[in-house]
C-alpha cells in the first residue's frame, strides 16, 4: 500500500504515545509514533524520525491497526558507522572478527561495546550438521559469538530428539529496522531457501522471519526456541528458582512471548512478573551503539521496572536485549540455559 494510504488510517488519537520508549523518556511529541507519522504526513524534517528504536510496540496499541513500521521505514537514514556494523553482521566470520577486534579499538562505539559485553567471552560460532538433518538451528548473529554456551545447550538438547544442522548468519531484522530494505531482502532470501523447520534462539529474529512472507513474499517455517518446545510438546525438565521474564519487542508484537512464559512455568520455575515486561530493553538492534544517550535513558526505565520485580535473574531470549540487561547489573538467562 502507498504510504499516503497507510498514513490516512492514523486518526491522531495518541493511544500509541505511552507505549513508545522514546516518548516515555522525552515526553515530547517529536519523539512519539504519532509525531513521526505526522511529520511524514506534513512532509517536514523532524529529528524524531531518526530517534525511533523501531520496537513497533506502538502497533500493538494502535486501535486503527496503523502499520507504523511500513510508514516510517523509508524515512530512516543510516549513518556510516551504523552501515559498517550492519555489514559485519552479514557474514558470521565478519561478526566474530569485528566483535573480537572491538575489544582492542579505542573508538567510542567500540568502548561502548566493551562496556556492554563485560564478562562475556567473544568466541567463534559453532558449526556443523548431522547426516540428513531434520531441523535447522539458527542461533542468530550475536548469540553464537557472545553466548556460545547457550547455543551449545540448545544444540545438545535438540540433538537428543532431532538431527540438526546449524546455520549461522543474520535474519536481516537489524538492516530492515535501519531502513536498508534491499539488504534485508537479500539476507532473507538466503534463509528463504531453507525447506526444513528453522528453530532460532532469537525471539525477535523469529518474529521478523515470520513476516518474510508479508514483506518479501518468502515462506519459511520458523519457530522461536520456546515456541518450538511447546508446539512440538517436548518434555521439559523440572527446575527450581525464581526469575522475571523480559518480552523482546518484536516477539511480543507477534505473540511469541507467551511460549517463553509457558516453558518457564512448565519447568516449575517461580515467575515474578516485572512491570510492562514488553517495554523496550534499551538495545533496539544497534540503537544502543548509534544513540547511546537515548538508549541509556530507556535502559534506566527498564532497569526500574525489572528492579520492582525483586528478582535479579531475567529470562531474555534475544541477545541484544541480554546485553542491556547485563549492563544494568542483572543476570540474563536464555530458556536454553535452563535445559
Amino acid at each position, binding site marked *: 500500500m502507498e504510504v499516503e494510504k497507510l498514513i*490516512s*488510517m492514523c*486518526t*491522531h*488519537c*495518541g*493511544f*500509541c*504515545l*505511552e507505549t513508545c520508549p522514546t516518548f516515555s523518556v522525552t*515526553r*515530547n*511529541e*517529536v519523539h512519539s509514533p*504519532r*509525531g513521526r507519522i*505526522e*511529520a511524514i504526513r*506534513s512532509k*517536514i*524534517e*523532524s*529529528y*524524531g524520525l531518526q530517534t525511533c528504536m523501531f520496537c513497533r510496540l506502538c502497533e500493538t*496499541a494502535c*486501535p*486503527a*491497526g496503523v502499520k507504523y513500521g511500513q510508514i516510517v521505514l523509508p524515512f530512516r537514514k543510516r549513518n556510516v558507522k551504523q552501515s559498517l556494523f550492519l555489514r559485519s553482521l552479514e557474514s558470521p566470520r565478519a561478526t566474530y572478527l569485528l566483535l573480537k577486534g572491538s575489544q582492542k579499538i579505542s573508538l567510542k562505539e567500540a568502548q561502548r561495546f566493551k562496556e556492554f559485553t563485560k564478562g562475556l567471552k567473544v568466541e567463534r560460532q559453532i558449526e556443523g550438521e548431522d547426516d540428513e538433518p531434520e531441523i535447522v538451528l539458527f542461533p542468530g548473529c550475536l548469540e553464537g559469538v557472545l553466548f556460545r554456551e547457550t547455543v551449545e545447550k540448545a544444540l545438545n538438547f535438540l540433538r537428543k530428539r532431532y538431527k540438526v544442522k546449524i546455520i549461522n548468519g543474520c535474519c536481516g531484522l537489524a538492516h530492515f529496522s535501519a531502513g536498508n530494505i534491499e539488504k534485508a531482502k537479500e539476507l532473507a532470501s538466503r534463509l528463504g531457501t531453507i525447506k526444513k523447520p528453522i528453530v532460532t534462539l532469537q525471539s525477535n529474529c523469529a518474529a521478523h522471519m515470520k513476516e518474510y512472507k508479508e514483506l518479501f513474499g518468502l515462506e519459511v517455517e520458523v519457530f522461536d526456541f520456546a515456541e518450538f518446545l511447546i508446539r512440538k510438546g517436548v518434555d521439559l525438565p523440572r527446575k527450581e528458582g525464581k526469575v522475571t521474564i523480559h518480552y523482546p519487542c518484536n516477539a511480543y508484537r507477534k505473540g511469541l512471548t507467551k511460549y517463553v512464559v509457558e516453558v518457564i512455568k512448565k519447568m516449575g520455575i517461580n515467575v515474578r512478573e516485572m*512491570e510492562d515486561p514488553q517495554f523496550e530493553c534499551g538495545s533496539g538492534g544497534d540503537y544502543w551503539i548509534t544513540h547511546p544517550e537515548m538508549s541509556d535513558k530507556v535502559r534506566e526505565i527498564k532497569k526500574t521496572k525489572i528492579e520492582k520485580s525483586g528478582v535479579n535473574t531475567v529470562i531474555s531470549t534475544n541477545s541484544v536485549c541480554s546485553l542491556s540487561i547485563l549492563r544494568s547489573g542483572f543476570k540474563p538467562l536464555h530458556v536454553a540455559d535452563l535445559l
Partner: protein
Amino acid sequence: MSTFKLRVKINDVSLEREVTRIVGEEWVITGQERELFSYPAFLPLKVTPPLVVLPGSEEEVIEIVKLFKSKRTKYLIRGAGTSLSGSTTPTQGEVVISLNRLNKVFYTQGLEITVGPGIANLHIGKFIDSDVFYAPDPSSYVVSSIGGNISHDSGGMHTPKYGTTFNSVVSLRVLLPDGSVEDLNGRNLDPLPLFVGSEGTLGIILRATLRLFPKPGISRTLLAAFDNVEDAGKAVVEIYKVGVTPASLEFMDKPSIIAVENTQYKANYPEAEAILLIELDGNSIQVEEEMRRSKLAISKCNGRFYEPTSEEEKTRWWIGRKGAFPSFAYYSPSYLTLDANVPRSSLPKILEFTYAIGRKYSLPVANCFHAGDGTLHPLIGFNSEDRENTINAIKAAEEITYYALTLGGVPSGEHGIGIEKLKFMPVYYSSEDIEVMRRIKESFDPEFILNPCKLIPPKEKECIAVGEIHKHLMEVD
C-alpha cells in the same frame, strides 16, 4: 475586553530566547516540528503554533507564565493531545506549553494520591496499592493526562457508580495567569470546582490530589441483547427503576457491533439490533441481588441475557466495547465523536434521530455509548481531505446536538466544548449565564491570554477565524 493586539509573532526572537533560558534549548521547538502540535484528536482544524515549550518542573512553568504575562503572550496548555473538541488547537496564535514532562507522583497514602498533570491516567494504577483503584476511565485512559482529564471533567465507563473526574478530585494546586499559585480544596467559596471542566481557560493545574476507591470484592458481567433499539433504551431506564446502580452500563447498536466484529476487536456478541453490556460490582450478596433484578428488567423489556462462560469471553466482550470507536474505521477512518448527554428516558428517540441524520447527509453513523449516565456517542464518518464533506459531517453533528438539547440534554457530557461546540453554548445557556462565565474568565485571566476563544462563545470580532471550518464552528446559526 481587548484582545487583538496580543498576537505572538513567529519571529519574536526575544521571547524565544527568554523561554530557552528558562527551560533549555532541548525543550523549545521553533522549526517545522511545531506542526506536530497543531492539533489534538479533533481532526477538522490544524493551526501551527508560533512556539512550543516543554517545561520540566513546576518552577519552570511558573517562570514561563510570568514571562508571558509580562509580554502579554497568548498561550495554551496541552497534555497528551487527545482532545476531541479542539480545546488545544492553537487557533489564536497561542504558544503551546506541553506539560507531559510534569508526570511525577508526589505522594500516595490510603485513598489518596498526589500527581503532576502530565501523568497518564493509566499509570496511576502503578503507584497505588492493589486493593484500591482510580475510578475515572475515559476510553483514552491509556494515554490521556490527568491534567486534561480534570480540565474536561472526563467520564468513562464507570461513571454510573463512581461519578466523573469531578468526584475523584480532592484538591488542586493551580497556577493562575497572573503567575500566582493557589492550593484549592473546594471548601466554602474556594473555587476548586470551577477548575474541573474549565478546559484550560482559567488556570494551569500544577498538581492534583486524587481520590481512590477500595476495589470491589467481586465484579460480574451481564450482556443483554435486543431485537430493536427502543427496547434496549427502555431497559436502561428499567434497570435503574428496579434499584440497580451498575458500575458500567454500555450500549452498542448494530452498526457498532458489525464494525467491532470486523476488526481486531472481534467479540462474538450474540446476534442483535442492540446490546447492553453491564458490569455489577460490590460484595457478593449485593451483586447476586443486582444480577437477579437486572435480569428481570431485561426480560421485561423483551431482551435476552447472557453471562460470559469464561474469563476470556468476559474480557473479549469488554475489549470489543473499548474497541468500538477505533473499529469505526471499518466505515471511515475519520469520524466525529459527539457526546451530548440526554435524559436516559429519551435514548430511543435520539438514537432513531441519529440514523435519520446519517441517511439525510449520506454519512455513516453508529452509536456506542455510556447509557448509564446518558452520555451519547454518535459517531459520524467523513473524509477529512474533502472540505465539503467535512462541513457536512459537522452540520450533521450539529443537528443531532440541537435535537439532544430539545430533549433536555446538555451539549457535552465529557469531551468538552472547546471550539467544536461553541455555538451550542447560547442555545443551552441564557445570555446572563454566558455573561457570568465571561466575568469568571475575566477575573482569572483579565488579559484574555490563556486559551482564548474556547469554551465561552466569543463576541463579534473578538476572535480570529482561521479558515472556513473554524468560522462555521464559531458562528451561531
